[in-house]
């Protein structure tokens, strides 16, 4: 042991080590760094710059993948939030539509205090390009009867043609089996609105039995006359888009475009009772 730790070399090393421990420590506590330590510090810190540059590059590369994972997770969370919010927006839109519909229903009720109205939803349509018959979700359970008029705030849709327990079939204005007593709002000329097979696919109907001298022009509004007791008086049917002479008589025929868009119909009202028009 003495041979190893008692040798001059070891003693010399020990002295140097003790000096290197005490002198820099004392100088450091006094605020000085020492010349040799200072020189080494200058050289080594200069060498640290390129290594730090490489470390920064690697760190940046590593951050890219960390950021990628974080962004991917955030993206998934945001997508889920977005879907949830889109659902909310959709539900809010449905509620808004229902709200608007109910407001219209209420204003119509206020305008026509004699009407007893029943709101209904279109649940089925006739398979074809232009609907003439559709199904609604109200029936005899809701006191719906055949021949009750069906309307929207825009105007007449048609009448109840068939009644089930919880459903009904509605025949629209453009159906060939339909006929509505009507008058031209501007001139008061009377006629009969009927469905026509050749006009059905275009969503049109005709106003027939017009006097040849009648005051009529394209754009005139056609309303229900109330005669026949099926429809109340004063409900809008549509507007005249064309006037043609009847091929078989001296009368005029007015082609009418219905005010109600029958293709996009989803909500209707059934008039369960009203005051019948008496001339």
């Amino acid at each position: 042991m003495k041979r190893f730790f008692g040798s001059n070399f070891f003693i010399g090393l020990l002295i140097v080590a003790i000096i290197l421990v005490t002198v820099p420590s004392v100088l450091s506590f006094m605020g000085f760094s020492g010349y040799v330590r200072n020189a080494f510090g200058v050289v080594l810190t200069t060498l640290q710059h390129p290594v730090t540059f490489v470390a920064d590059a690697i760190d940046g590369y590593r951050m890219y993948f960390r950021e990628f994972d974080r962004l991917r997770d955030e993206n998934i969370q945001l997508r889920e939030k977005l879907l949830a919010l889109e659902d909310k927006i959709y539900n809010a839109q449905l509620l808004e539509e229902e709200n608007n519909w109910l407001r219209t229903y209420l204003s119509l009720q206020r305008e026509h205090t004699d009407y007893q109205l029943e709101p209904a939803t279109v649940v089925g349509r006739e398979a074809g390009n232009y609907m003439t018959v559709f199904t609604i979700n109200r029936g005899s359970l809701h006191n719906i009867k055949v021949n009750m008029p069906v309307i929207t705030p825009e105007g007449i849709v048609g009448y109840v043609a068939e009644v089930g327990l919880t459903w009904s079939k509605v025949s629209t204005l453009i159906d060939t089996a339909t006929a509505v007593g009507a008058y031209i709002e501007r001139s008061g000329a009377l006629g009969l609105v009927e469905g026509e097979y050749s006009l059905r696919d275009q969503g049109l109907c005709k106003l027939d039995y017009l006097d040849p001298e009648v005051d009529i022009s394209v754009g005139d509004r056609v309303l229900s006359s109330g005669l026949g007791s099926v429809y109340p008086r004063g409900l809008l049917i549509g507007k005249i888009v064309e006037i043609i002479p009847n091929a078989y008589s001296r009368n005029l025929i007015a082609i009418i475009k219905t005010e109600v868009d029958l293709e996009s119909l989803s909500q209707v009202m059934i008039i369960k009772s009203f005051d019948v028009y008496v001339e």
Partner: protein
Amino acid sequence: MNLNFDIKKTTVLKMLTYLGLLCFFAVLQTAFFSRFGLFDSTPDLMFAGVITISMFEGEKGGGIAGIAAGFLIESIGGVGLSLLPLPYMLCGYICGLCFNYIYNRNFATWALFILISFIFREVFTLMYISIIRPSTSFFYAFRSVLLPEYFSSVLAAPLLYFLIRPVAKLFHRGRSLS
């Protein structure tokens, strides 16, 4: 005082080469591994370097390498109390003695010395913590400082072995080195 060593040209070149390597390890430890350390701890490359040099150069080379390594790392990485030259020197000297007179020099022996020496290194760290942060609990120091430092240093040490070995082979042609 007769210090019992001759200074030859090859010896000076060898010392300068090892000094350069130690400077490189010091920069690597403070600028690179301080940011990308394993187990959130900076490995002590200088200590592993001293043990590796002592394996190839014996107790004299190990002792000198220990002083140099301790001084270098304190120059750029330390502030205040500068204790490392002493324990590094002792470790280099003792490991060099053991390598010279007791054990064969191969990777397995080197690895065993690394594993044992770093235990003493962590004991020194514990003593250092107890001086500068006396309120630190042993359990916290063990879990948060000693264990991570030990494992990160042991895992990074083979890098030094494979960097120093070719240099040692260059200066010890004719000797069989594993």
